[in-house]
């Protein structure tokens, strides 16, 4: 027999977790004691929020749920912003928090906080483990839920006394849940309708969202785009789905997007949303979308379809599977008329940036940066002007552009960069503002202590 704390560590090993990010405290001590005896590497962050962001960076590179850890009360509460940030961007994550002893739960004990209740609006699911025997089942389910369907953060809250109970360790091999069955395959009838609509469209447009990365569908997506010869725009989360300098890519749409992308969005007669939810920043007047065009919406989360824009052809399913299916049926590529038209707009909107004596033009700097970095570099943007400069001027090639799209959380870039680097990314560069840098500069300690070769660029404009 082993303790629940030891079982928790074994569960992580079984899930092939090699690195975790966290911060200890009394209520999570039994788990930490067990963790020291494992080969799992623990990165001690300088504030729990950064453990969450680092896990986010790790998960976004590996495509698998990553783990962060905090103690009860203040530790867990410090994680909240990171959990919500991950939830908004559908990042798979398992959060482990210590809780006060079972018999004290509900008594306003020292360092007690209802983290389940507090995080309920922005966790995909959460557990408080009251029955020690359930620990392995809870871990198995947590990883399964976090990493399947529309990914998201799952929280496991374990009271301190439970961590010390001895149990028989037995990790389930399979996990089936009658109430949770994410739909992995798009409906064949709907796929057929979509292909017909594409065939009949004069000015089709693909809008790439973060779902392309989440379903690991970059290859299938590229094949689809090239086969159909359809222009592509992206949301902020979809940047990099096609290389930014691809002739079919016309930039980011929306409030902070670029003109060619927004013109394409306005003038298209068929909009194909791929793993994008058409949020308020991406589509400012969703009600007008349906007036001028048909919409095909492919997403794994049925609740996103019809939420912001109506879909004429909704397809619920995993993007990778659906695109494979579509690629096997796509017929002839579209002619170049519509693309040539957009090319012209793109050519006419290239403005020459002004240079000021003694200042560096940030856009020019970002463009230069794109040329200097490795082709597979991971760029992590923060929030603010620096983020928009990156989104519109950085040239993603084979690498990634990571940012906090949905929540716009300042202080994201450095800890997320740490996570991306720990996940094995070749070259990671965090770009932040001078304001956001000061929200996360404690992580320089983490970076120094662990010798993490992360590059940091601070875009100093002396203002927020």
């Amino acid at each position: 027999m082993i303790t629940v704390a030891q079982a928790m560590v074994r569960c992580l090993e079984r899930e092939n977790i090699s690195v975790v990010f966290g911060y200890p405290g009394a209520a999570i001590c039994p788990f930490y004691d067990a963790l020291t005896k494992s080969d799992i590497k623990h990165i001690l962050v300088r504030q729990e929020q950064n453990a969450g962001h680092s896990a986010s960076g790790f998960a976004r590179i590996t495509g698998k749920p990553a783990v962060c850890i905090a103690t009860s009360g203040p530790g867990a509460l410090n994680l909240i912003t990171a959990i919500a940030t991950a939830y908004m961007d559908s990042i798979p994550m398992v959060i482990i928090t210590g809780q006060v002893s079972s018999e004290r739960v509900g008594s306003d004990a020292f360092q007690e906080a209802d983290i389940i209740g507090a995080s309920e609006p922005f966790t995909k699911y959460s557990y408080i483990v009251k029955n020690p025997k359930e620990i392995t089942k809870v871990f198995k389910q947590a990883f399964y839920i976090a990493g399947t369907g529309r990914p998201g953060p799952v929280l496991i809250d374990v009271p301190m006394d439970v961590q010390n109970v001895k149990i028989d360790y037995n990790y389930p091999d399979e996990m089936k849940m009658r109430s949770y069955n994410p739909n992995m395959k798009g409906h064949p009838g709907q796929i057929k309708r979509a292909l017909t609509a594409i065939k009949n469209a004069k000015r089709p447009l693909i809008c790439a969202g973060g779902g392309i990365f989440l379903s690991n569908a970059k290859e299938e997506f590229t094949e689809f785009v090239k086969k159909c010869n359809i222009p592509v725009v992206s949301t902020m989360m979809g940047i990099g789905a096609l290389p930014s300098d691809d002739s079919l890519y016309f930039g980011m749409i929306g409030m902070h997007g670029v003109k060619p992308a927004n013109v394409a969005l306005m003038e298209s007669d068929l909009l194909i949303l791929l793993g994008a939810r058409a949020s308020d920043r991406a589509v400012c007047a969703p009600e007008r979308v349906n007036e001028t065009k048909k919409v095909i919406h492919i997403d794994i989360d049925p609740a996103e379809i019809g939420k912001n824009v109506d879909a004429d052809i909704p397809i619920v399913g995993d993007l990778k599977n659906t695109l494979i299916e579509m690629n096997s049926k796509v017929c002839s590529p579209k002619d170049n008329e519509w693309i040539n038209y957009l090319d012209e707009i793109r050519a006419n909107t290239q403005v020459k940036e002004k240079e000021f004596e003694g200042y560096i033009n940030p856009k020019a700097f970002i463009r230069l940066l794109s040329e200097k970095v490795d082709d597979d570099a991971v760029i992590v943007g923060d929030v603010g002007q620096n983020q928009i400069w990156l989104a519109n001027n950085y040239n993603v090639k084979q690498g990634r552009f990571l940012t906090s799209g949905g929540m716009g959380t300042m202080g994201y870039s450095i800890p997320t960069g740490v996570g991306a680097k720990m996940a094995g990314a070749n070259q990671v560069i965090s770009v932040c503002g001078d304001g956001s840098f000061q929200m996360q500069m404690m992580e320089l300690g983490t970076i120094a202590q662990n010798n993490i070769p992360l590059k940091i660029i601070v875009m100093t404009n002396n203002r927020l």
Partner: protein
Amino acid sequence: MKHTISILVENHAGVLSRISGLFSRRGFNIDSLAVGITDDPTMSRITIIVNGDDYTVEQVEKQLYKLIDVYKIKRLKVEETISRELMLVKVSCTSENRGDIIDIARVMQSKICDISSESITIEISDTTDRLEILQELLRPYGILEIVRTGTIALQKGNKSIC
């Protein structure tokens, strides 16, 4: 427009708070919510009466379905549904008007479940409309207290949502 939504959920602690949290968070208006265990003790059935247009109710359904603990969900059509609500109502009475109140209760096919020299408690299980009729009829006598369970509903015929 009122809609009746039936939901089968895993019978866990915390499920109800997830569901009610979702309603308040997303600004959905619920008129009533009733919950109880089913024939399968691991499953509970929730009946929600929600007020909203088609878009809102579709969103309610989809967001509810997204909850991990929700097993099945169905919007029930009024004409294909039997719905009932239970109400207990305590009215003040005197020896003079007691007979009138008992008559009303009888006409409304409700039950007297408690009686004292100064009050009568009536139990009615019926549609929400009929509950409200009884309530109006009793109002002149002085309603002391009312408690209602919220509507529960099943589809007519041999259909089931499971």
